[in-house]
């Protein structure tokens, strides 16, 4: 962290101004506040205030059956909701000892990697906007739209997806979803390449981001950073590689690692991750061809919600539906921690179950919450304009920050 001058109240040169960055300001990308003390344009100190959209998710989760917690997870990181959904479903599956068929795992990999791309598109696009380059953002947003259309085909919704069920998916992927996915795989790399060439050697962009807000690996680890931010600082920790879930062990992919830990490294790491995600989706599609095409959930009728049509026409399905929705089926009295690699880092679910209808305690380890706490200390000594760029490179999502 950079050294900064120390001011006292009696200092004749003490002419600091106070600037409220946020709570609602275009540069904060969400509702949270930083009260900054400025000496000219240089930040002397800062205090972060969060909690403006705190919605008490952990408390609500204590009163809801497992299925009704899925919509809460959607709203954590709303830029990549499927990762949150599936992380939660996998936690419950781990608790209940459910093994999912390979085809479900591969479909999950596809959806989660699409979500990661969608998240990085927004983050890197907006980083460009904050340096004054709007073009890249416009180029890329088209493909976030394409990803949302694939979600829409899979589950009917776009932003807060509620994708999936305990044990798999609510319905099978239709041919239109696959057609849209294939089209995405052909079109997106061209634009991503164009996007990279727009920025990677752009004098203004590189000058504004290189060596800005550089964080060492030690600092990043001390602050429990995860995800692209930690990897940009040179630590190759990726939950997908270290503790594979959803059969990530079957795939070949690299974990991009940066060297400087600065804004530019984070940008490069996220870009490279998008290429790796494309690679993963490509492999998953090949693997899917070898699996039976009609499997899309595990055979666990006591936990997998039956399709509505069956609920109306089949007595057994109706009974299961009732029992699942009312939380009548016994669950083990134990605790479980499961984590997935969210777009911002390790997204963990710590679930303490007492066999009741809803979790006794559910704690979300939200990467944005943990990543963001370094913002104020690291901004000291920085120029205000650099602090803005730094904030967009942290990719703080207010929903995930406050929960």
């Amino acid at each position, binding site marked *: 962290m950079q050294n900064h001058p120390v001011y006292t109240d009696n200092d004749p040169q003490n002419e600091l101004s106070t600037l409220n960055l946020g709570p609602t300001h275009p540069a904060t990308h969400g509702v949270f506040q930083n009260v900054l003390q400025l000496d000219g344009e240089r930040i002397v100190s800062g205090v972060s205030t*969060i*909690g403006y959209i*705190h919605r*008490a998710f*952990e*408390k*609500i989760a*204590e*009163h809801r059956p497992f299925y009704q917690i899925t919509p809460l997870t959607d709203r954590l990181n709303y830029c990549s909701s499927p990762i949150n959904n599936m992380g939660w479903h996998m936690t419950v599956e*781990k608790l209940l000892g459910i093994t999912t068929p390979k085809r479900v795992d591969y479909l999950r990999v596809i959806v989660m990697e699409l979500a990661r791309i969608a998240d990085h598109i927004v983050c890197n696009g907006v980083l460009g906007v904050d340096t004054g380059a709007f073009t890249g953002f416009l180029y890329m947003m088209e493909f976030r739209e394409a990803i949302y259309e694939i979600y829409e085909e899979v589950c009917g919704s776009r932003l807060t997806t509620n994708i999936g069920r305990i044990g798999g998916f609510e319905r099978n992927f239709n041919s239109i979803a696959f057609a849209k996915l294939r089209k995405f795989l052909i079109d997106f790399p061209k634009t991503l390449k164009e996007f990279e060439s727009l920025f990677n050697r752009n004098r203004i962009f590189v000058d504004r981001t290189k060596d800005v807000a550089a964080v060492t690996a030690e*600092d990043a*680890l*001390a*602050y*429990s*950073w995860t995800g692209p931010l930690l990897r940009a600082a040179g*630590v190759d*920790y990726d939950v997908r590689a*270290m*503790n594979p879930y959803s059969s990530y062990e079957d795939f070949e992919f690299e974990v991009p690692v940066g060297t400087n830990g600065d804004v530019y490294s984070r940008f490069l790491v996220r870009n490279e991750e998008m290429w790796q995600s494309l690679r993963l989706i490509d492999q998953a599609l090949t693997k899917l061809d070898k699996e039976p095409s009609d499997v899309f959930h595990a055979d666990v009728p006591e936990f997998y919600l039956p399709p509505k049509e069956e609920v109306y026409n089949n007595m057994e399905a109706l009974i299961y539906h009732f029992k699942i929705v*009312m939380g*009548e089926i016994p669950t083990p009295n*134990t*605790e*479980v*921690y499961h*984590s997935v690699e969210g777009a911002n880092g*390790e997204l*963990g679910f*710590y679930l*303490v179950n007492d066999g009741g209808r809803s979790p*006794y*305690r559910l*704690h979300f*380890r939200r990467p944005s*919450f*943990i990543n963001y*706490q*370094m913002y104020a*200390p690291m901004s000291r000594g920085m120029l205000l304009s650099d602090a803005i760029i730094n904030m967009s490179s942290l990719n703080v999502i207010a929903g995930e920050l*406050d*929960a």
Partner: protein
Amino acid sequence: MAQIPNEELLKRIGEKFGEQVTLVGEPYGLLTVETSREQIIDLLTFLKTDPALKFIFLTDITGIHYPEQEKQIGIIYHLHSLTTNTRIRIKVFLVDGDVQIPTATVLWEGANWMERETYDFFGVIFDGHPDLRRILNVDDMTAFPMRKEFPLEDPNRVDKKDYFFGR
């Protein structure tokens, strides 16, 4: 490096701390131990600095409330050794009314907000914390809302009581 087996990890901790750290269980393979607030910083320091264990990464700190137990308030730490890819869960239970525990910010800067959140939700006082204020709730709030005595719904509502469902 290969993952440290739970037996070996427990043996190492046992050699150093003896009876002061007790085994709670291994739910889903994650070694869970319990200790006292007098030992917690020593235990965390040992786990972090021991050259063979290297639990350098603090994954999470959170709390839990068991109103029926004598020691009602629990603080739960999740550590991760990135070199050996081993995780460990540590629990400390405190009597309500005396919920003070030393801060882990002396070991990890990142414990700061996690402890503020635990204070905000459960009222745990972390001794030595540089800035122990509420973080997600408003400053003038007096309750600690994640404790079980604060129900989410109207307590007079009866249609969701367990006895209607044969429990």
